[in-house]
């Protein structure tokens, strides 16, 4: 795969997305999703309690937050896979309350899953073709007579091959999806989602368990989605990636939205540092613990600060926090 990597090109971030000061629930210039008072409880636990949230159209929005913050639950609620106890949410001007998941997908809001769902005993090509919308051959009576759907199926196949080529999976089109590696399955799931020509792509941890080279190409794919006019909302824990591609960041903690803003500002927000990033995000722990010299520190971290920090101080803070 190493020959496939194109060096990352700096792309301009989309700005001017919000109206007024960037605070939780800030209004957007052109929102694609508007969430109001959505609550979901599991027994006594409130998993999601979002008072107001708008997702900007035509931009890449990252949803971050500690484990258990309710990110995936919010994803499930927005896509109709789960039903909230209260609240309304609107996609593209249409209310989605009570709309089943398959209808949400047909409206152009497509998602992927945190645990990749490649359809193992279907071939890669079949997986792709399954993603296409409005297939005549998927209706029962028409499916019995190939002349109704053969032409459309050929067109879908062509489009599938184009996408597979983009995702470097075209050589595997006849293999079972179960034979793909974990990273390739992530690519396949994303490519399959794109077969439905969505307007909003929701990716749940697209980079989890993917090696750095593949991450690089996935990042490019996600940026390309924006170039093609799609809106992207993704959950991710990798802060480098969030900084690199997100135009807007929404931070959740304990079910609520605690901060919003562009990546640079949000990551300096003390509430975000407390709830999620930790106070020593800029430090290279390898240098702090003395495993290697400050000169060898990760270039994205603050080498001087790492060298000057005493490991005992951090450990003390950590033990205090856990009290």
């Amino acid at each position, binding site marked *: 795969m190493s020959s496939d990597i194109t060096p990352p090109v700096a792309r301009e971030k989309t700005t001017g997305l919000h109206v007024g000061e960037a605070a939780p629930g800030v209004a957007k210039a052109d929102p694609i999703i508007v969430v109001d008072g959505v609550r979901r409880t599991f027994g006594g636990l409130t998993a999601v309690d979002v008072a107001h949230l708008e997702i900007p159209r035509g931009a890449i929005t990252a949803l971050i937050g500690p484990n258990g913050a309710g990110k995936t639950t919010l994803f499930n609620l927005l896509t109709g896979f789960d039903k909230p106890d209260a609240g309304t949410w609107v996609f593209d001007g249409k209310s989605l309350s009570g709309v089943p998941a398959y*209808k949400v997908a047909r409206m152009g809001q497509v998602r992927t899953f945190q645990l990749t769902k490649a359809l193992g005993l279907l071939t890669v090509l079949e997986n792709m*073709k399954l993603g296409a919308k409005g297939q*005549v*051959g*998927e209706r029962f009576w028409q*499916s019995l007579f190939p002349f109704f759907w053969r032409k459309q*199926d050929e067109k879908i196949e062509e489009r599938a091959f184009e996408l597979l080529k983009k995702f470097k999976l075209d050589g595997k089109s006849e293999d079972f999806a179960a034979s793909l590696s974990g990273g390739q399955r992530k690519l396949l*799931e994303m490519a399959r989602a794109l077969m439905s020509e969505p307007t909003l792509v929701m990716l749940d941890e697209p980079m989890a368990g993917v090696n750095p080279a593949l991450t690089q190409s996935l990042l490019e794919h996600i940026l390309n989605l924006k170039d093609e006019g799609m809106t992207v909302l993704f959950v991710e824990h990798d802060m480098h990636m969030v900084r690199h591609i997100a135009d807007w960041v929404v931070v959740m903690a304990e079910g609520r939205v605690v901060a919003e803003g562009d990546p640079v500002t949000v990551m300096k927000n003390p509430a975000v540092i407390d709830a999620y990033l930790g106070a020593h995000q800029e430090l290279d722990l390898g240098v702090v613990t003395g495993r290697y010299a400050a000169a060898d520190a990760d270039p994205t971290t603050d080498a001087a600060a790492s060298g000057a920090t005493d490991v005992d101080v951090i450990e003390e803070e950590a033990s205090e926090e856990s009290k």
Partner: protein
Amino acid sequence: MDWLQILNNSASSIISPATLAYALAALGLAVHFGYAGLLNMGIAGFMALGAYGYAIGILTFDLPWWAAALLGMAAAAVFALILGIPTLRLRGDYLAIVTIAAAEVLRLLFLTTTFDSVTGSADGLSGYHGSFRASNPIPEGTYGFGPFMYNEIGWWVRILGIIALALAALTVWRLMNSPWGRVLKGIREDEDAVRALGKNVFSYKLTALVVGGVIASVGGIVYALPSAVNPGVYVTSLTFFVYTALLLGGAATVFGPLIGSLIFWVLQTVLGNVLPAAVDAGILPFMSNIQAQTLRFILVGIALMLIVIFRPQGILGNKKELTFVK
């Protein structure tokens, strides 16, 4: 041992109505279990509805035989809907529990004396052959060659059975090689993923349940065509026999159920002939003739276990499918 007679009987069972009926039922089950991933443990119930619908249609409602056959198929379709609407939202193993219970409820309803005038309760139903035999275009006489010597009625039953089986196999083959079948196979693998792609998973599963159920009911009708409807046939072990035939041939294939039923019945006939003959010849001195007849069902059980453990994809299944752990 009279090997010629045993060979004759075994060859004859290749196109026996029972083989054709099992093949149809197994094909219906292939739609449920092999393609849609629905663990239907009540296939005997669908077959019973076909058989009873056919017999009751003729005896109680005075329908011509073909209309009675349609009644049996319609009854299976309605049963699939009633069963499917509340239960298809359940996970696979729960569906198995519900379907096995529903098939038993059906069987007990047919068995109870309350409806004796219609269902014949424990005696079952017979004497409904008039209009079917009257429609037979084959002139009276015995036809065929070698082991396949049957009279005009025997051939009429077999010809209709083969036509029904061919039509059903063609339908399933067409369905499963279409985008519709692709969605169904996708649902078998992971229904949430298919839902996320905008497909109405519930409606696909319900359609599959109805299609498979109707095909299985045709199996029940073919089973009832030559003789009588006996409530003792549609028991849970029938479901397991059909599963054995299906898994033997390959669950996610069109021709697997046909091959599987054929092998199942030929083996049954061979064992049913050879084992008692072996007892008579003193080769199996430790068992009686009746015990020898039972032994073959024990062997069926062992065969089912061996298939599932060592060749879960069946004879015709794709070997590659086995390579992956789910």
